C-alpha cells in the first residue's frame, strides 16, 4: 500500500509542473481562476491557496486579466520525452505556462525538466525592454530541494539565509564553504 501511495505522490508531483502563472498582484480566488478551464490556472496547492482566498487586495478584479493576457497560448504545453522520473518526482519535458500580465508587460515562462531536475528556465514571451535583465534572471527561479534529485552541500557555492551573527557563522555551511571543505 505504501508503494502505491508513493507512486501517486510521484505522479502528482510531476503534474505539479503544470505550473500556473499569474501575476502576483492579482488575488485569484481558486474558483475564479478555475473558470478559465485551463490546466495551468486551476487552484493552487496548499502552498498558496490560503493566501489566494483571504487576500484583501483591491486588485482582485484584475484576476480576469490572467486569461485575458493568455493571448491565445494554451495554458500549458508539454513536449520532450515525457518519461516520468519517479526517483525525483519530476516529470521530464518542457512545460510552458500561460502568459501573465505584469507591470513590464506580458510574461510567459517555460521550464525544462531533464532527469528529474529543472535544467532550464526560459522566458519565451517577455517585454523586449531590458534584455540583460531577462538574461540575468532567466535561471534565477529558486529550485526547491524537493524538486532536485539531491541537494548535497558540496554543490552549494554560497549560502543565503536570514542574516547570521558572527557566532552563527562559525556553525554555518557558509563557513565550511569558505574553508573549501564543503
Amino acid at each position, binding site marked *: 500500500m505504501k508503494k502505491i501511495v508513493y507512486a501517486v505522490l510521484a505522479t502528482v508531483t510531476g*503534474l*505539479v509542473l*503544470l*505550473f*500556473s*502563472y*499569474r*501575476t*502576483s*498582484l492579482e488575488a485569484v480566488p481558486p474558483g475564479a481562476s478555475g473558470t478559465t478551464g485551463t*490546466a495551468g490556472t*486551476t*487552484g493552487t*496547492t496548499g*502552498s*498558496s*491557496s490560503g*493566501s489566494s482566498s483571504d487576500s484583501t487586495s483591491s486588485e482582485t478584479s484584475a484576476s480576469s486579466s490572467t486569461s485575458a493576457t493568455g493571448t491565445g497560448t494554451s495554458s500549458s504545453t508539454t513536449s520532450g520525452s515525457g518519461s516520468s522520473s519517479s526517483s525525483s518526482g519530476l516529470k521530464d519535458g518542457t512545460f510552458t505556462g500561460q502568459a501573465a500580465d*505584469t*507591470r513590464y508587460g506580458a*510574461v510567459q*515562462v517555460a521550464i525544462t525538466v531533464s532527469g528529474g531536475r529543472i535544467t532550464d528556465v526560459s*522566458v519565451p514571451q517577455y517585454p523586449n525592454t*531590458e534584455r540583460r*535583465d*531577462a538574461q*540575468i*534572471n532567466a*535561471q*534565477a*527561479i*529558486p*529550485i*526547491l*530541494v524537493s524538486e532536485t534529485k539531491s*541537494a548535497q*552541500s*558540496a*554543490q*552549494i*557555492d*554560497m*549560502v*543565503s*539565509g*536570514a*542574516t*547570521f*551573527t*558572527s557566532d552563527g*557563522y562559525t*556553525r*554555518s*555551511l*557558509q563557513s565550511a564553504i*569558505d*574553508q*573549501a*571543505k*564543503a
Partner: protein
Amino acid sequence: MSVAAPSAVPSAGRASGAPVAPCRHVRTAELMGTVASAHVLTASPSPDPAVAARIAAAQRAALDELHELDALFSPFRADSQISRLRIGALRPEDADPRILEASEACVRLAAASGGRFDANRQGWFDPTGYVKGWAVEGATARHLAPLLVESGVIAVGLSAGGDMQLLTAPGADWTWNVGIADPLRPGAMRAQVPLRDGAVATSGPAERGAHIVDPRTGCAVVDAPTATVIAERLSDADAWATVAVVAGFDDLSWLRAAPDCAGMLIAADGRVRRWTHGVEIAEADVPWGR
C-alpha cells in the same frame, strides 16, 4: 577582525560535469555584526603569482571598504557619523557624501514600498537595513569585478551574512549555485538558485529572532516569513527582501513596485511561494490525465 588564510583547495566538481573544478580563493572578515566572505574562482589551482597577488589585494580592498562603511554607518558605534548625526554632533551638510547617497535611496525605497521599508521609523535616520546590501554591491563592483579580466579568473562574489553579489566572466563555464537555507531546519537547504550574474538576499526572523518591525505599525511582524529576493543589484535584493518580510506571506502586492526580480517566501509553517519576473509560479492542482 579575523581574516582566514586564503585557501586554494579545488572545490567540489559541478553537477553538470564541468571539465575542471575551479579553485576557490576565499578571504573572510568579521564586520557589520556578521561575517563577510570574498570569493574569487580561478580555472587553475595556482594562477600566475602576479594574478594571485592582485586577487588577494582586491579581496582585502573589498573587505576594507565594508569595514569603512560599517564605521561610517553603524548605529551601534557612538563615533559613527550616523550616531553623531542622530545626537546633533554632526551637521548633515558635513557628513560623508555616501550618507546622503544612502539617505536618498532610503527615501525612494520608503515611497516605492508603501512605507514597508522606512529608515526613519524611529524618528532618526538609521539605514542599517539598507547599508549592508548597498555596501556589498559597491565593494564588489569597485574591487572584485575588475578581476574578471585577469587571466584564469572565472567568477567573483562577495557575501555578507548571507546576502551576496555574484559575477561571472563572460564565456566562463561557471554558474554559481546558491543554497537558500531552510529557516525551519538549521543547517539544511530549502532551495537552490543557479545564477551567473546577480544578487541574492534573504531576510527573516531566523537567526536573530523578531528583529523585523513593520514601520507602519511599529510592531514586530508576527509569523514573519523568510524572504529571498534575487535581483541584478544587491541593494535592491536586500531592501526588497526586507519589504517582503514585512508584507507577510499572504501579500505579494509589493512586487508591482519592485524592480524585476525572482524570489521565494517561506512561511513560518513551511509553506512556500515563488515568483520570477514579477509573476508568481504556483503549483497547479491539476486533475489526472492533463
